[in-house]
């Protein structure tokens, strides 16, 4: 019996959340310590998985399989491949930094960390599930704590509205996909929810053409695909900092990943049939998201819409169905996750001190907040796709992929890079440099050590990946080979 590392990763946050709930509500420091310890433990395990993944062997590794309900062919089947190992790592990173950033949260931290960790458990679960039923199970677990996290600890003005909107959007998406999954289960006649079996089921083309849009779009709602992206900026803005980080950093990847895993990999013929449409929608995401981000005056909305734009690039990468495009999309998921977590962390730090996010009212923050400024600039460079940063490693292959399929889409999508550069630079100039407004003089307190550690950690990751793409790209490629095999073989 080998050590069941993936189930330990999945259940660590869940166990931690139960333990946290069992602690007395007044012991806030102990609650935080326990949360941090559990998060670090999960991160260490996911780092271990990442570096012990055997790229030469490829395929699914660290596989565990326990029968859950044999009558219906439901099993707890876990495993990682080249695409998911980075995503597991991403989740671990965001979890740790999220706890660090929320250290000073004072309103019922016990419940906050407990709900956040239930969410984290769900996220890990989706990334490593090889069973369709379990994937849904974890997917829903990842969705509902969002409601509480946003509505209780979120931004007072919009939290109730945004939390409900987000939850309903995601729930609708997931249940629509669920019907598709049930249809697949019965149509395959295999009596199993195991995705490794279902991906060889050879569904008839008409079936795939019919169900692909339901399954793909149902999940892609969480990936923020146009025209179902509406919940996402509102949700990001209303959420407390750590939840925004989780949300934009990890949850949106959850949607994109599930759309790939269930939509494209199980219904490859459908994917080929609808690829053009998906590409069209994703193109709108990329360009429209960037334009909207540019005209926002709320700092957090800028980042919210930039997420929509960047997730569009992931979807574009998927829709190419080429090796380059998919590889880029895989790396982009990781890179954007880290980048956007950093962005939201910085936004949170600025807001906590200035008590406003209106860009025209802010200015000169670099004087007081050195670390966040540097972090934001690094994130900005990643966002613009500068060589030497992880964004470049991700976006370049995506554009290569698009160019092979439809060059004009690549040209149109490239507009977004220019727009992104302009809004990022505008924000940097207006928020971090220039004149400090009078009311802030002397009111901006320093950030604590944990915040610095979080910013430093996230920045180093992005630069590291930019400098040494070999750390991740070949691994993602092994995962992509698997997808391509399904696409080619079907």
């Amino acid at each position, binding site marked *: 019996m080998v050590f069941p590392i993936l189930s330990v990763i999945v259940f660590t946050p869940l166990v931690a959340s139960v333990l946290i709930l069992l602690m007395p*509500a007044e012991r806030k420091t102990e609650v935080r310590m326990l949360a941090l310890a559990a998060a670090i433990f999960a991160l260490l395990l996911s780092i271990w998985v990442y570096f012990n993944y055997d790229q030469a062997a490829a395929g699914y590794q660290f596989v565990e399989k326990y029968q*859950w*309900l044999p009558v219906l062919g439901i099993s707890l089947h876990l495993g990682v491949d080249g695409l998911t190992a980075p995503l597991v790592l991403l989740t671990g990173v965001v979890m740790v930094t999220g706890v660090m950033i929320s250290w000073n949260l004072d309103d019922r931290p016990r419940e906050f960390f407990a709900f956040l960790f239930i969410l984290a458990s769900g996220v890990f679960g989706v990334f490593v599930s090889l069973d369709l039923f379990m994937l849904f199970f974890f997917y829903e677990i990842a969705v*509902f704590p969002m*409601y509480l996290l946003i509505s209780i600890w979120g931004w007072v003005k919009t939290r*109730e509205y945004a939390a409900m909107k987000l*939850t*309903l959007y995601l729930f609708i998406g997931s249940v*629509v996909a669920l*019907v598709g999954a049930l249809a697949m289960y019965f149509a395959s006649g295999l009596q199993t929810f195991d995705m490794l079996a279902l991906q060889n089921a050879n569904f008839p083309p008409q079936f795939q053409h019919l169900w692909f849009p339901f399954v793909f779009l149902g999940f892609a709602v969480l990936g923020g695909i146009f025209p179902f992206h509406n919940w996402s900026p509102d949700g990001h803005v209303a959420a407390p900092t750590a939840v925004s980080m989780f949300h934009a950093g990890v949850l949106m990847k959850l949607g994109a990943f599930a759309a790939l895993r269930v939509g494209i990999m199980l219904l490859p013929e459908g994917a080929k049939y609808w690829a053009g449409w998906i590409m069209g929608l994703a193109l709108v995401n990329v360009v429209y998201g960037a334009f909207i981000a540019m005209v926002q005056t709320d700092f957090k909305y800028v980042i919210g819409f930039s997420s929509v734009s960047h997730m569009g690039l992931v979807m574009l990468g998927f829709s190419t169905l080429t090796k380059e495009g998919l590889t880029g999309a895989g790396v982009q998921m990781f890179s954007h996750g880290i980048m956007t977590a950093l962005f939201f962390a910085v936004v949170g730090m600025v807001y906590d001190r200035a008590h406003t996010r209106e860009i025209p009212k802010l200015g000169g923050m670099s004087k007081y907040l050195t670390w966040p400024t540097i972090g934001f600039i690094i994130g900005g460079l990643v966002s613009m796709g500068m060589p030497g940063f992880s964004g470049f490693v991700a976006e370049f292959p995506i554009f290569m992929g698009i160019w092979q399929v439809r060059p004009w889409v690549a040209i149109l999508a490239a507009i977004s890079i220019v727009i992104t550069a302009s809004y990022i630079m505008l924000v940097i100039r207006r928020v971090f440099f220039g004149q400090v407004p009078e009311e802030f003089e002397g009111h901006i307190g320093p950030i604590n050590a944990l915040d610095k550690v979080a910013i430093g950690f996230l920045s180093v990751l992005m630069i590291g990946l930019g400098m040494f793409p070999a750390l991740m790209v070949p691994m993602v490629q092994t995962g992509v080979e698997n997808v391509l095999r399904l696409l080619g073989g079907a």
Partner: protein
Amino acid sequence: MATYTPTMILAILPEILLLALGILILILEPFWKEEKRRNLGWLTAGGLLASIFISIFIGRPGDPQMVFGGMLRYDWLGFFFKMLFMFGAAATALFLMDMERVGRRGEVYLLLIAATLGMNLMASAADLIMLYLAIETTSIPLYVLAGFMLTDDRSTEAGFKYLLFGAMTSAVMLYGFSLLYGFTGTTSIYDLAAMFAAGQHSMILAIGTIMLILVGLGFKVSLVPFHFWAPDVYEGAPTPVAGFLSTASKAAGFAVLMRLFVVAFPEFYISWASILAVLAVITMTVGNLLALTQKNIKRMLAYSSIAHAGYAMIGVVAVSKLGVTSVVFYLLAYILTNLAAFGIVMAFGRVAGSDEISAYAGLSRRAPGLALAMLVAFLSLAGMPPFGGFVAKVFVFAAAVQSQMVWLAVVGILNSIIGLYYYLTVLKVVYLYRSEDEDKPVPITRPYGIALVILSVGILLVGTLFAPWFSLSGAAALNLF
């Protein structure tokens, strides 16, 4: 009359134990002083749980068998439901204990046991006459229980309303039974199908008769348009009784409905399945839409329980092994969940003196544990993992998809979205809103504590380790096909 066999005793072992428990309570009650009578609740709950264990230990059914001259059928379907009812009654007894003006009256426990006894017989009745008697045995104690608080106008009204609706619908159902006998010359549920298959029957008359029977059963499971009593009765009746009505009583209705329709009317299944499909859609939609606007939590739970009858009906409509299995599983998860929900309402209501949803503001600060139990129960009702409601819904929808009724699954899904909205709205009040009473604690007495912990753990168990429960439900369903 068939000769006596030991299986006959085993077949009604749970009923015998219930009767003994009832008599014990009847004997003890006059000897116990007023302030000690609360302990009858412990006795009832303990006795019921003991009966469950004894029955599971020695009274498990083997192959299905007719006993008592074909009056009862000794099978897993009946057995599984019996255990569910007795469990529900045990939880209800605990909830009743600390209810003012109710918990210290011995009759309340006796009536509860009598109703449970009736439900047990409903679940295993194999003959129309037995079935009707069982239904009445269940209903009459429940009428009394609903109107138990004589000095409370709303409770009296609830009792009367329940009685009038119940008597009316049961009369219509009885008329349906008599017509069935007229057509076929038999009252045995298991002979009806053969008689229908053999003889020449007017389709319209047969369907009409089925509709008449449906009136009575529709009342029991609160199917729209026979649901009008539910909100008023739930609001007025003592809260634990409302919980019992919405769970065990409803499940008993489903047990009868499935046995009767699947076994006796296979000839006409396309017709009744279509009728039930339409009713399921209407029930879900009406229940959920009306629940949206409720300000009183008991009324909201009443409409939500109407909606849940609709979801469960999806599984019945699928008319397949998976369908019936999913209904049984659904009812299991639903009973645990809804009992917990009503228990929480009771525990909070007796301290706060109000059942308005707005009174729940600040609950998570006043009583974090109770708020957490509420989170578990309401998210399970909404169908979120890792709670029982999620798996149960997935199975029901799966049954619909398997039977080529994707549209029904889609309607169910649209409805669960509405459901999610109002359940979340309550949780929002609990967790988000502030209130002036925030520093007043909500003391939870021991019976509530025990029952709520058991129910919450049960909800989690059913939602995560669902394999054993599913196999049990499957064993029960197998008896119908």
